[in-house]
């Protein structure tokens, strides 16, 4: 896995903002993947455009790219595969059973 963003919709017309990820102290996955996740600080925690909250295990998933509706992301701490959707103007993740 090179990014938590494992699949994105085809045919995008504008480029995505790229991000450099640094360690956040999250240790619940193997070392090489730790920068892709961080602990959630509760409802007051504002997520960046490259972040989405896993609804299953409440860990913030971080991508090297800006996330958009329709993206498929992977949450390694709970091993869920998720689809990014919009809800009330915010990006949320839904489990892809």
């Amino acid at each position, binding site marked *: 896995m090179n990014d938590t963003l494992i699949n994105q919709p085809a045919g995008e017309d504008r480029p995505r903002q790229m991000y450099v990820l640094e360690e956040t102290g999250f240790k619940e*996955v193997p070392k090489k993947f730790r920068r892709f996740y961080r602990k959630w600080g509760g409802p007051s925690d504002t997520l960046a455009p490259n972040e989405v909250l896993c*609804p299953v295990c409440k860990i913030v998933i971080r991508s090297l790219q800006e996330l958009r509706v329709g993206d498929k992301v992977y949450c*390694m*701490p709970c*091993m*869920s*595969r998720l689809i990014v959707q919009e809800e009330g103007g915010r990006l949320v993740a839904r489990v892809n059973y």
Partner: protein
Amino acid sequence: MTNFLSGYSIQKWLESCPQGYLEDTVYGHEAGEKEPEGLFDNELLREGQIRSTCNLVLGERAALAASSGLVNCAPDYKSKTFLATQTLDEARHVEIFTQRLFDLGVSPADLEDTLNEFGNPHLVKFAEVLLEKVDKGDFVAGVVGQNIVLEGMAFSVFEMLHAGAQEDNPKFAHTLSGTIADERRHVGFGENRIGALIKQYPEKKAECERMQAEMSGHMLATFASAFKEGEASNEEARRLQKEQGKESHAMYHGVDLAQADTAEMEAVLADTVLKEFKTRLGRIGLEYQSPIAA
């Protein structure tokens, strides 16, 4: 997108857990960490910790029995593999919480008597509802009971205990951190596996919902008696903090655990767990049922 089951392997579990967040831990905490000295000078405080740890051991023994039982009734090898790793996780939890009882001064010879004395009878009934499904080889109901209901409850209880221990007892907080990380995988398996299976077996819905209502009832009764029995110990901890001029603010879902009374703490925990049940069950296609009074 490949099937979520492809993520379940012993190799991945080894890299995440024993070679990952559990590396260099001793019974789940950092080497050399000890229970706070003050616990051993105050019998009320020590007994309160023994009581709550006994219930952690009993809960984890139930999870061990359930996850190991589910290995044999799992319909595919990837699920069996995951449940085998979960079985080892649960056995580890039993061991680390049992070790905590020893660290708190319970002798190995007195372990079973101590568990019988302090174990919550409602928690035993909660486990019996689940284990009945597992004994019948009912995989769908067993995973809902184990990985959604039991693990969902454990996840919130551990988070609350972790919030309370972070400042005053780093050893216990570290022990809990590893178990919380394990619970994330367990609830993840529950949602992902059952989310797919419930579509295949819609006739199982009513039975699973009934079981959730029954288990939730026993869970609420467990919380009620556990918080009542822990009241004196909590009050004593606060009295000592005040006497020593210490001020702590352990926050859990907006409630200051260092200031809240036991009724408030019980309410926030019960509310958090039930809301989570409702959301999780809704996601996998089950309808949350109000708890059946125990």
